[in-house]
């Protein structure tokens, strides 16, 4: 439970910022290549990668403890159920 050992150095934070900016460039670039319905999925995959970086490094998710990790993943799971069931409903109307 020692606090200080979980702190990221400025260098790590800077590298993550660099990666986030790079991924922003990639997602803008990818939007110019027309691959039909895949475009949305590519954008969402890149956005999820960026979100993961923010969650794990900037938001210190690992050191926040198991309770936070499990409850966060449960939230994502229930969000997926909400999205999935609504699309299920919409598709069969």
């Amino acid at each position, binding site marked *: *439970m020692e*606090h*200080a050992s979980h*702190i*990221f*150095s*400025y260098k790590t*934070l*800077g590298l*993550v*910022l660099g990666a*986030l*900016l790079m991924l*922003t460039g990639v*997602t*803008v670039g990818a*939007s110019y290549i027309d691959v039909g319905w895949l*475009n*949305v999925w590519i*954008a*969402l995959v*890149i*956005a999820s990668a*960026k*979100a993961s970086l*923010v*969650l794990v*490094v*900037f*938001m*210190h998710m690992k050191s*926040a*403890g198991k*309770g*936070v990790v499990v*409850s*966060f993943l449960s*939230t*994502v799971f*229930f*969000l997926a159920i*909400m*999205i999935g069931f*609504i*699309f299920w409903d*919409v598709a069969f109307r």
Partner: protein
Amino acid sequence: MAVQRDQTGKKLGMWLFLYTEIILFGALFVLYAVYFSWYPQDFILGAKELDLGFGVTNTVILLVSSFLVAASITAVQNDQRNIALAALAGALACGAVFLVNKYFEWGHKIEIGIYPGSERLLDGPAPQNLFFGLYYVVTGLHGIHIVIGMVLLAVSLVLVFSRKITAQNDAVLDNCGLYWHLVDLIWIFIFPLFYLVV
């Protein structure tokens, strides 16, 4: 030991609140996704009206601000009070620039007749009205979150300055930072969904 448990509880409480925010914006994203799947052509035309320059600029600004907030936590842990203050002030400035950009972006849209209930949208195709309705609701709600986040960052700044937030007692800064990162996280999804579906 008691202090440690206290910190953990405060952090878990903040995360629980953040989940409600995720579900709130998640519901709006579902609304967007369903209408997008129904009217892809209209949504693509709508997205073409949005200014990619503003979208990219605001994305970069929020990413930098998130980095600064994370750096301020590292600085507080390292007892580098001045760096923490500078980082928080920088993050606040980023938030302000974001809002100024939003003002110009919305201002231009309103000028060319794209706003809720405008004649252009009411007389045009209904799905495009939907797209811009969602655009104003989602970016507007996000903008309110930026304002709240800036208030929280300002509070943290004052508390670091008055030495109430220290390496041993930084739960307030941690939680304000978590809120700010969530606002960034939501923008990470708003940006491609609204600006890049062209």
